[in-house]
């Protein structure tokens, strides 16, 4: 259909007359430039193109973009274009393009060769490692200043963060921990029922929850919840130049934004872990007493004797370490965020991924150390 809109007339020597007819609207489709070039390829003697557009009934940017492409193509082939026959509006638009185009030319960018890209990545890795170390150093210095009372520390902000990453997370932590307790009880029951030793479910649930599961589940919940929110919050602040505003005011953004967040999470995560431990034991208790028919009092007694204080300490140490990990990865990603919507998304994702990975690695390390120490 589009080819009916365009007629090529070679009757005048060395001149191509292009007749355009009908509607040239974006909504009804426009011919491709390639159609023109293939038609034109057999007539290398043509040095000039003229237009007859008197039969065009309606046009919009469809026509202009076709002509714009055609003109560029002809410039490449050194063919002269006689614009006189074009509609007045089109001429004005083409003029506008030419006037405005001259001063605005982008610089040519060449794609990097493979090895250069590879090297670039390696250097980037080094950079990001250095920036992590630098960030840790800044945090240490800032903490020193906070402890020495030299830092600008807003207690109200700190309490707000404490509330957001502590009290506000209780519901979610309760739900997940109770369910983990229930799952552990059921899984324990499968094996222990064979030996008639269901009562040891109490030991399994108690030790597993208090020693590691309570902390790990809380850690994972908090990476998704608080770590991500730290990264997004600081990322948006970076995008909005709020962090630059702090710097120019002489306030160290690490001191003002990062330290309270780390402090809040380091305080709240062990507490949430403790809470998760109780909730997990509660979950195991509900299933054991309600479904598996274990004597409730006996269950509690067994839990009490099985869970040693050392287990509790190990759990709390996990919580403490996870708090540091989540807060640092969230804040680091947020502070290094690229200034765009994309950047904020990437910062958030990478904060969660980093903290969950680090949590699992840290758990493995702590478990190994405890094994070696025999605790």
């Amino acid at each position, binding site marked *: 259909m589009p080819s009916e809109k365009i007629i090529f007339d070679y009757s005048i020597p060395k001149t191509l007359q292009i007749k355009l007819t009908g509607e040239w609207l974006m909504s009804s489709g426009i011919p491709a430039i390639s159609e023109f070039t293939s038609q034109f390829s057999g007539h290398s003697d043509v040095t000039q193109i003229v237009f007859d557009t008197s039969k065009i009934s309606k046009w919009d940017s469809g026509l202009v*973009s076709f002509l714009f492409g055609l003109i560029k193509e002809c410039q490449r082939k050194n063919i002269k274009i006689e614009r006189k026959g074009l509609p007045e509006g089109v001429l004005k638009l083409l003029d506008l393009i030419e006037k405005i*185009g001259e001063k605005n030319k982008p610089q040519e960018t060449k794609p990097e060769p493979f090895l250069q890209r590879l090297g670039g990545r390696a250097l980037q890795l080094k950079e990001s490692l250095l920036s992590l170390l630098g960030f840790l150093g800044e945090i240490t210095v800032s903490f020193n200043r906070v402890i020495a009372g030299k830092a600008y520390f807003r207690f109200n902000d700190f309490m707000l963060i404490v509330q957001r990453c502590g009290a506000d997370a209780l519901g979610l932590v309760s739900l997940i921990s109770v369910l983990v307790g229930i799952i552990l009880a059921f899984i324990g029951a499968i094996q222990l029922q064979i030996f008639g030793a269901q009562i040891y479910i109490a030991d399994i649930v108690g030790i597993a929850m208090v020693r590691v599961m309570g902390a790990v589940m809380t850690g994972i919940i908090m990476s998704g919840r608080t770590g991500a929110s730290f990264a997004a919050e600081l990322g948006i602040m970076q995008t909005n130049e709020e962090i630059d505003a702090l710097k120019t005011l002489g306030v160290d953004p690490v001191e003002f934004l990062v330290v309270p967040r780390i402090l809040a999470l380091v305080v709240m995560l062990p507490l949430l872990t403790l809470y998760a431990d109780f909730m997990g034991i509660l979950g195991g208790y509900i299933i054991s007493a309600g479904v598996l028919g274990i004597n409730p009092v006996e269950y509690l007694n067994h839990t009490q004797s099985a869970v040693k204080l050392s287990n509790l300490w190990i759990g709390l140490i996990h919580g403490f370490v996870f708090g540091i990990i989540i807060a640092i990865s969230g804040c680091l990603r947020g502070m290094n965020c690229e200034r765009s919507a994309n950047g904020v998304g990437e910062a958030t994702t990478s904060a969660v991924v980093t903290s969950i990975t680090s949590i699992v690695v840290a758990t493995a390390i702590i478990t190994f150390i405890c094994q070696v120490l025999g605790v």
Partner: protein
Amino acid sequence: MKEASEVVIEVRNLDLSYDDYEVMHNLNFKISKGDIFIIMGTSGCGKSTLLKSLIGLRPPAKGDVLYGEKNFWREDASGQKDLMRRFGVLYQSGALWSSLTLGENVALSLELYSNLSASQIQEVVELKLALVGLSGYSKFYPSEISGGMRKRAGLARAIALDPDIVFFDEPSAGLDPINARMLDDLILKLRDTLGATFVVVTHELASIFAIGNNSVFLDANSKTIVAEGSPKDLLANSKNSNVIGFLTRGQKQGGQ
């Protein structure tokens, strides 16, 4: 300039509010085809809120916005969508989608609402970018170009579908005088060539006088329109001290 003819937008008895807080009340004005219509007023008087009600982002508390025969806020969702397709909007910050290149930003509406093939869309995109002086930039991301260029790219996106009406929210905000002037020129030229109607929300006096041929003045105190007409006429003839104060940068505040 031709005499004001066909009315493209009519605002009737429009009330704007945030919950219980009244922003503006009883707004009435008409915008004719081919106008560059300025909505002006002091900061915070409700210009942007009015714009949001015109472009379908925020329902008014009361009243009607008519596009030709169609009453925007009485239309169903698909009717509203059809109307929205007829206008382009340039947001204050450009509001380019940062994950897309400039070319993709312009191409998106063409991909959604036209029957063009990929290569034809590419040609239209090149044209639109060239119109705003950004030819050759289609592979760049918004984060790689300057603020003025981002605004122009936003304009290329707004005119991608050859809209009947183009809305501008503070087009020259954040631009240097040269770039602001360039954008004004571009608006004038596009009006002459595309034949579209332009509605501009602004408080930049230079722009107001350079491009506006009709306007309304929103007054923050009385919360309604206190003056209507071409900005130059208002400057010469308005009796309202707020309008005169605004148009002369407070140098002729009158009795107040």
